[in-house]
């Protein structure tokens, strides 16, 4: 069993670990491009319609967005501790920190869902039900504000989708940790999942000021 964890095409366990980590980084580079396209679209339209974006942003709750930022940063910290526990070969601590990360991740999604429902209730959901009326059509139009909300729902939606995928991955890690599949020698799945989770955190680090704090 001790040899079962090293795939035959690797020279040693360190090379295997290095390869797993590098593979995740290459995937994350493609993720940077995916979210980069959304951030670029956002930047172009904010540059074109600054007043409409400020008006749209003022309808978001800085309070809820701020709490969610704190929740997500804390979940990244607990994920770092989960990876640390795996590297030290402590399966019980690993399971504990994975559960903590999952609870924080679920809390983030719960707060986000509440925000979305509240915004939909206010008529800020783009489409036929969009009910925002501009106070001054000479400065900015309702359609420009709708564009802000298209980007808001698309970007936070894709971010939330990534979090749901992350939570699913962590459920698998938890099961495998329960089966004592990870040790000081073999813990790459935990490490690369950690990289993914921290990346999703970084996306939010930029989304929060860009969407909630436009002045």
């Amino acid at each position, binding site marked *: 069993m001790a040899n079962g964890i090293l795939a035959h095409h690797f020279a040693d366990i*360190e090379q295997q*670990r*290095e390869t797993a*980590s*590098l593979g995740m*980084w*290459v995937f*994350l*580079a493609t993720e*940077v*491009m995916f979210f*980069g*396209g959304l951030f*670029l679209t956002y*930047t*172009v339209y904010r*540059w*074109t319609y600054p007043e409409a974006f400020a008006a749209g942003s003022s309808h978001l709750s*800085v309070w809820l967005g*701020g709490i969610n*930022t*704190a929740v997500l*940063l*804390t979940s*990244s*910290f607990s*994920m*770092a*501790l989960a990876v*640390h526990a795996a*590297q*030290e070969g402590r399966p019980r601590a690993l399971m504990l920190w994975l559960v903590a990360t999952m609870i924080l991740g679920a809390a983030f999604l719960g707060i986000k869902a509440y925000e979305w429902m509240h915004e939909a209730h206010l008529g800020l959901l783009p489409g036929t039900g969009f009910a925002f009326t501009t106070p001054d059509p000479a400065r900015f139009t309702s359609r420009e504000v709708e564009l802000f909300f298209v980007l808001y729902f698309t970007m936070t939606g894709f971010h939330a989708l990534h979090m749901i995928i992350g939570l699913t991955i962590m459920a698998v890690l938890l099961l495998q940790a329960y089966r004592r599949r990870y040790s000081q020698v073999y813990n790459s799945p935990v*490490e690369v999942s*950690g*990289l993914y989770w*921290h*990346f999703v*955190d*970084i996306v939010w*680090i*930029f989304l*929060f*000021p*860009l969407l909630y*704090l436009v*002045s």
Partner: protein
Amino acid sequence: MAHTVISIRTYAIVYLLLMLLMAATIGAHYLHLGRMALAAAMAIAIIKAVLVVLYFMHVRYSSHLTWVVSVGAFCWLMILFGLTFNDYIARGWVGE
């Protein structure tokens, strides 16, 4: 080649810094810095992202190849933004 394990103390310090920087972002928003607001918010966000990448994502202790891929991702993003805004900003500079 031994694999570096970052101490819990280091993680805790980075976490504390991230929370302080988050408070700074929100604080700066209510100072109403005007034209500087976006630059301040983005500067803080970049510092936070670099802290996460270097410590939580272990890049500081990773191989040179990992450095190349992570910095490369950022460079491609800058090309995307640089070339696009090269167009948007320069529109109207030259008469029809």
